[in-house]
C-alpha cells in the first residue's frame, strides 16, 4: 500500500514533466497543424543553457533565464525558418523540424561535447521532504510537481480568462477572421511558438538535474512526447494532460512491480511449456514488466490508433 503511494508520486512527477512538453507541442500543433519534431530539442537546450548559467549565476537564475532564451530561439525558428517553409506545405514543415532536431543535437555535441554535464540539484532542495514507509521522497520531486502544476494553472488561466488567451483561442480556430478584425495573427503564432518552446525549456531546466543533461536527452524523451499527444488526441490540451499522467503512472508501475508474463499466462490457465529452448515463443514467456515498461506507451498508442484513432479526448477526425 505504501509502495503504491510512492509510485503515485513518482508517476506524477514523470507525467507532469511529460505534460510540460506535450502542452506546448499540442498548442503548436493545433495552431499550425504541424508537429514540432524539434520540441524535445528545445527541452534539451533548456537544460544545457540552465547548466551554463548555473555555473555563473546559480540554479535559480538558470531557471529564470534559460527558458526565456529558449523561447526567443523558438520564436526565431518560427519567424525565419518555419514561416519560410510553410509555403511548401505540411510535409516539408515536418521534415524541417526533423532536420532541426538533428542539427540541434549535433550543435549541442559540438559545443558541450558528448559527455553528461554535472548539472546538479540546488543545495536548497537537496534534502528529504518526507518519507513513506521507509521510502524517502526528495524535496526536489515535490518542487517539480509544484512548478509544473503552477505552470499548468497559469497557462489555463491565461488561455481561458484573459483577453490575450481569447484572441489566441480564436486565432487557433479562425485565423482569417481574427486577422480581419485587426489582430496580427502571424505575431500570435510566433508568440505561441515561443511560449511553447519556452515551456519545453522550463521542463528541461527542472528535468536536467534528475534525468541527466546529455546530448541524447532529447531523443530519449522526444518520441514519448509525440506518443503522448497522439494518445491524448492531437491538439487537445486536456487530452495531453490525461495521456501524460497515464503514461507516467503506467511506466512507473510497470517498472516497480515485477510482473512476469508467465505468471499472467498461468493465471489465465495456460501452463508453462516444459522445454523452452526450442519454443519460438520463449521470449514471450520470459518477458517481465520492467523490461517492457519503456515500450508500453508505444503499445498503448498502437491500440489507441486502432480502436480510437482520434485519441482519448481528441475531437477532430483528421
Amino acid at each position, binding site marked *: 500500500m505504501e509502495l503504491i503511494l510512492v509510485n503515485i508520486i513518482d508517476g506524477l512527477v514523470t507525467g507532469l514533466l511529460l505534460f510540460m512538453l506535450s502542452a506546448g507541442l499540442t498548442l503548436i500543433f493545433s495552431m499550425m497543424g504541424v508537429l514540432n519534431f524539434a520540441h524535445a530539442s528545445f527541452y534539451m537546450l533548456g537544460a544545457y543553457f540552465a547548466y551554463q548559467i548555473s555555473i555563473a549565476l546559480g540554479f535559480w537564475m538558470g531557471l529564470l533565464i534559460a527558458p526565456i532564451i529558449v523561447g526567443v530561439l523558438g520564436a526565431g525558428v518560427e519567424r525565419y*525558418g518555419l514561416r519560410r517553409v510553410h509555403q511548401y506545405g505540411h*510535409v*516539408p514543415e*515536418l521534415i524541417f523540424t526533423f*532536420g532541426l532536431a538533428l*542539427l540541434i543535437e549535433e550543435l549541442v555535441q559540438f559545443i558541450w561535447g558528448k559527455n553528461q554535464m554535472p548539472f546538479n540539484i540546488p543545495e536548497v532542495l537537496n534534502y528529504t521532504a518526507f518519507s513513506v514507509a521507509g521510502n524517502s521522497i526528495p524535496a526536489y520531486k515535490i518542487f517539480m510537481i509544484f512548478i509544473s502544476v503552477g505552470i499548468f494553472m497559469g497557462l489555463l488561466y491565461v488561455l481561458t480568462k484573459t483577453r490575450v488567451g481569447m484572441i489566441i483561442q480564436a486565432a487557433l480556430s479562425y485565423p482569417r477572421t481574427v486577422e480581419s478584425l485587426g489582430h496580427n495573427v502571424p505575431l500570435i503564432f510566433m508568440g505561441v511558438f515561443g511560449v511553447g518552446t519556452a515551456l519545453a525549456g522550463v521542463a528541461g531546466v527542472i528535468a536536467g538535474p534528475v534525468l541527466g543533461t546529455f546530448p541524447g536527452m532529447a531523443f530519449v524523451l522526444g*518520441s514519448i512526447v509525440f506518443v503522448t499527444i497522439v494518445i491524448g488526441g*492531437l491538439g487537445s490540451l486536456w487530452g495531453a494532460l490525461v495521456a501524460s499522467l497515464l503514461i507516467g503512472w503506467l511506466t512507473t508501475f510497470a517498472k516497480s512491480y515485477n510482473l512476469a508474463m508467465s505468471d499472467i499466462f498461468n493465471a489465465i490457465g495456460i501452463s508453462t511449456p516444459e522445454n523452452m529452448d526450442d519454443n519460438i515463443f520463449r521470449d514471450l514467456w520470459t518477458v517481465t514488466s520492467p523490461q517492457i515498461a519503456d*515500450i508500453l506507451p508505444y503499445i498503448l*498508442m498502437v491500440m489507441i490508433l486502432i480502436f480510437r484513432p482520434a485519441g482519448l479526448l481528441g475531437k477532430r477526425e483528421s
Partner: protein
Amino acid sequence: MSNQLTTDPSKSAQRMRAGSMTMTLMPWILAAGALMLMPFIFTSSSALTIMNQMWITVIFALAYNMLLGQGGMLSFGHAVYAGVGGFACMHIMNASDFFASFPLPVLPVFGGIFGAGLAMIVGSFSTRSAGTVFAMISLGVGELIAASSVIIVAFFGGEEGISGDRTYAMPFFGNEFLQQINVYYLTSFWVLLSAALMYLWSRTPVGRMANAVRDNPERAEFLGYSARWVRYYSFVASGFFAGIAGGLFAINYEIVTEENLNTASSGVILLVTFLGGVGFFFGPIIGAIVFTLVQTVLSLQTELWAFYAGSLFLATVMFFPGGLAGLLMMHVPVFKLGKAKLLIEPYFKTLLPAAIGILGLCALVEMTFHFRHATKGDNEMTLFWTTFDSHTVLPWLIALAVTAVGLAIAKRTAPALKEAWSDANSAGEVS
C-alpha cells in the same frame, strides 16, 4: 509573334522528344553499362564496399520515395521494413537445408516478402490518413519494433544481432559468392531490377492514383477511388522493396543488428531521399550516391560530418525543396531554349566565391571544435593540407577574412545571377 516557339526537329534539344522508345530505354541501358563497368574503373575492395552500400541505399531510397515523393506519406520508421527483411533473410541463411535449395540471388525476394508482410499489417491501420497522423504512427511503430528487438531475442538476436554465411546457398552457375565482386554484381542486378520495377509501378494506374491521392485526396475519392486503399497499396509495395534492400544488406554484410531498424536509420533514409529530391524518380538515386560518398569521404576527414550533413539537409529543406534533382531539372528549360551559356559567367562569379566562403566557414567551425575539444597541449591541427597552431591568432584571421570576402562577393554578385537566370528562362531575344 516572331518570338513564338515552334517545334523544329533539326534542333537537337527538340529532336530528343521523337523516338520515345529509345528515350525511355536509354537511361536504363546506360545505367546497366555503368554498373557493369564500375568495378573495372574502381578496382580497390574499399571502392567495391562503398558501391555495394550505395546501391543498397539506392533501392531503399527509391522505395522510400514511393511513399514520400509519389504518395505524399512521410514515414519516420521505414527502416523497420528493411530491417525485418534483413532479419528474415538472415534466418533463412541460417536454416541450412532450406537455404541450400535455392541460389543466393533469389534470397532478397524473401526479404521483400517479409517486408511487404509487415507493411500489410502496419499499413492496415496506419494508412487511414496521410500527413501528420501517418508520420506519428510510423514513428511510434518504428520505435516499438526497434525497442522490441532487444526483448525478442529469438528473432532479432538481442543486442549483438544475428549473423550468417551466404556461401551455403545452392551454387549459382558454380558461383558461391565468396568474393566481394560477386556480391557486387548480385547487388547491381537487383538495383537495376528493383529500380525498373519501381519505375514501372509509378507508371501503372495504381502509381498514378498515388500521385492523385497525394495532391488531392478528396477529389480522388469523388472519382471513386478509396484514398486509403491507394495509400495501402503504395505502402505495401514500398515495404516490399525496402525488404529487398534489407535482404541485400544481409547478403553483403552477413550480419544484421538492431541498428538496421532503429529510428536513426529511418532518419538517414529520409535525409538521403529529400537531399536527392522527392519530385523526380531519379532524385533518390542521386541522393543515395551523393550521401554515401559524402558520408564515406567526409567522415574520414572530420568528426563533424553529421553536423555538416544536418546543415546541408536543413538548407535543402529551406531553400531548395526540390532537392538536387530539382536543381538539375530547373536547368532543362534553359537548355531547351539554348541559353545555357548565359548562365556560365554569373554562376562562376557567384558560386565560386560562395563555395570559398562556405569552406572558410567550415574552417572556422573546425578550428573552434579543435580549440574546445582537443586534448591539452595538442595545439597543432591540420586543415586543407596545412598544419598550424589553432591557439594563435593568425589562422583565425585568415579563415575569417576568407569567409567574409567570399560571402561578400557572393552577396554582391547574387542579383546579377538572378537577372541572368530570368533572362535565360524567358523565350526570345535577350533584352
